[in-house]
C-alpha cells in the first residue's frame, strides 16, 4: 500500500495567543501507521490536523493522499472535507446532542446498514446506551461514541485531536488500549494529536514533534525521545517538579506521566541544563533496580 503515503508540504500563517506564527510543515506519513503529533500547546498540532481534514485551508503548498491531490495551491485545488474520506475526532467530541448514541453512529455511515453500528457499539461497550442522548453519558462513554462514530464513516484516514485529554488517568489507559485495538483491527492510518509522552509511547509507532510551527524530529518514539547512548534498562520519563539543594548535592523531584513521584540525586554539573518543567528521563542499569510484588 505504498501509494497510501500522505505527503504534506504546506505553509499557513496563523494567529496564536503568543502572536502570529508561521506553520511550515513538510512530512511524509506512511500508510497504516498510528502516528502521534507531539508538541507543546500552541505549536500548531491541531491546526495541522484541521488542515489535513480540510477545515483549515493552507496559504500555499501541496497535500497528497496516495495519488489523490487534496490540496495544491499552485493548481488551485482544494478538496472539501466531505470528499476526503476522513474522520476527525474532536477534542470536545462534537457528538450531535439531538441524536441518540445509535443515531450518532448511524449518521456517520456512508451507506446505511444496521450490522456495522451494532458491531461498533458492541466493540466499545455501548450497546446498553444505544438509546441515550450524549448529555446522559460520562466523559469516557462520550469518547467511545465519538471513536465509534469516527470509525463508522469507514475512513481512509483517522484524525484524533487529543482524544483522551479530558479523562482521568485510569480511564485514559483503558481507552488507549481501545484505540490501539481499533487501529489494529481496521488498519486505518491514524494521526493523533497528543502532548502526553506516555500516550505517545503506548500508542504510536511513529511520532512527529512540532515546535513553534515546524517539525523538529520524526521517527519511532524511542528514537526520537531517548538518547541512544544510554543503555538504561529501566527508563521513566517525567517532568521536573522541584530542585532542592542539600549540602553539596541536589535532590530533583520528577513526576512521571502516571503521577508517580521520583526523587533523584544530582550534582551541580548535572543540573547545568536542567530547570523546573523540563521533560527528563530517569534511567537505571539492569542490576540496580530491585523488584517486589505489589500487594
Amino acid at each position, binding site marked *: 500500500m505504498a501509494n497510501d503515503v500522505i505527503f504534506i508540504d504546506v505553509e499557513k500563517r496563523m494567529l496564536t495567543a503568543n502572536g502570529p506564527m508561521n506553520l511550515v510543515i513538510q512530512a511524509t506519513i506512511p500508510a497504516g501507521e498510528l502516528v502521534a503529533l507531539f508538541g507543546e500547546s500552541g505549536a500548531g498540532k491541531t491546526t495541522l490536523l484541521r488542515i489535513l481534514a480540510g477545515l483549515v485551508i493552507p496559504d500555499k503548498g501541496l497535500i497528497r493522499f496516495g495519488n489523490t491531490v487534496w490540496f495544491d495551491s499552485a493548481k488551485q485545488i482544494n478538496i472539501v472535507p466531505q470528499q476526503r*474520506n476522513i474522520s476527525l475526532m*474532536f477534542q470536545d467530541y462534537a457528538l450531535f*446532542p439531538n441524536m441518540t448514541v445509535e443515531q450518532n453512529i448511524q449518521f456517520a455511515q456512508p451507506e446505511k446498514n444496521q450490522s456495522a453500528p451494532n458491531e461498533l457499539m458492541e466493540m466499545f461497550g455501548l450497546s446498553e446506551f444505544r438509546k441515550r442522548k450524549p448529555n446522559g453519558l460520562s466523559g469516557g462513554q462520550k469518547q467511545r461514541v465519538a471513536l465509534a462514530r469516527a470509525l463508522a464513516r469507514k475512513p481512509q484516514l483517522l484524525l484524533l485531536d487529543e482524544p483522551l485529554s479530558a479523562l482521568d488517568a485510569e480511564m485514559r489507559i483503558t481507552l488507549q488500549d481501545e484505540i490501539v485495538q481499533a487501529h489494529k483491527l481496521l488498519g486505518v492510518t491514524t494521526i493523533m494529536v497528543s502532548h502526553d509522552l506516555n500516550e505517545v509511547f503506548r500508542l504510536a509507532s511513529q511520532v512527529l514533534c512540532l515546535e513553534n510551527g515546524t517539525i523538529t524530529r520524526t521517527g519511532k518514539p524511542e528514537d526520537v525521545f531517548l538518547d541512544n547512548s544510554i543503555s538504561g534498562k529501566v527508563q521513566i520519563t517525567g517532568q521536573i517538579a522541584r530542585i532542592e539543594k542539600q549540602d553539596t548535592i541536589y535532590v530533583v523531584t520528577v513526576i512521571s506521566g502516571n503521577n508517580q513521584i521520583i526523587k533523584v540525586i544530582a550534582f551541580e554539573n548535572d543540573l547545568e541544563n536542567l530547570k523546573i518543567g523540563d521533560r527528563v528521563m530517569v534511567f537505571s542499569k539492569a542490576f540496580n533496580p530491585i523488584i517486589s510484588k505489589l500487594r
Partner: protein
Amino acid sequence: MDAQFAQTLWLTLKLAVSTTIILVLIGLPFAYWLAYTKVRIKPLIEALVSMPMVLPPSVIGYYMLVIYSPRNWFGDWLGRIFDVRLAFSFEGVLIASVIFSLPFMVQPLHNGLRALPDSLREASYTLGKSKMITFFKVLLPNIKPSVITAVALTFAHSIGEFGIVLMVGGNMPGETRVASIAIYDEVQALNFEAANQYALILFLISLILLTTIYSVNKKYDTWRMM
C-alpha cells in the same frame, strides 16, 4: 360577535400567519448565511436587519409608501407590468409587515446558530455530509428553542403591529383594518366596549404566546449544554 368584528380578527390572523410563514422561509436561509458569512459588510447588514427594532414604524411606513407610490419607478413598474397597487392593500401591508418583523425572526435564529459549537458543523462535514444535510439534520434540531422563540415572537409581533399597518394600509375594513387599528378606531369613536373586546383578545394571545416561549426555553435550558 358581529360580522365586522370577526372579519377584523380574521384579517389580523391572516396577516400574522402569512407574515410568519414568509419569514420562516426567508429567515432560515438568511440567518444561516448571516451566522457563517465572512463578508466585510456583515455589521452593516446586521444593523439594517435590526433597524425596525429601533426606528419608529412611521419611518419604515413612510419609505414603504414612497416605494409603493406609482410616481416612484418601482410602484410604477409594478402597476404597469402586473397591474398591482401595493399602497393601501393587504399585499402592501404584508410586505411591510415582513420587513418590519424581520429582526424578530432572524435574530433568535442567528443567535441560536452562533451559540452552537463550530465542531458540530465541522464534524458533520468531515463525516461526509453536505451543508444541506448538516443544516437540517444537525444544526436545525439543535436550535429548536431558537426556532420556537423566533416563530412565536414574529407571530406575536405581527399580530400586534399598529404603526406600519396604519401608515401603509390605512383603515379599510376587510382589506387592511386589523385588530390593533380597530382598537384605535373604536376608542376615537368612544366605543369602549368594542375596543375592550379587541384589546382583551390581543392581550390574551400575546400572553399565551410569550408563556409558551418561556416554558419551552426553560425545558431546553438544561438540555442545551452538554
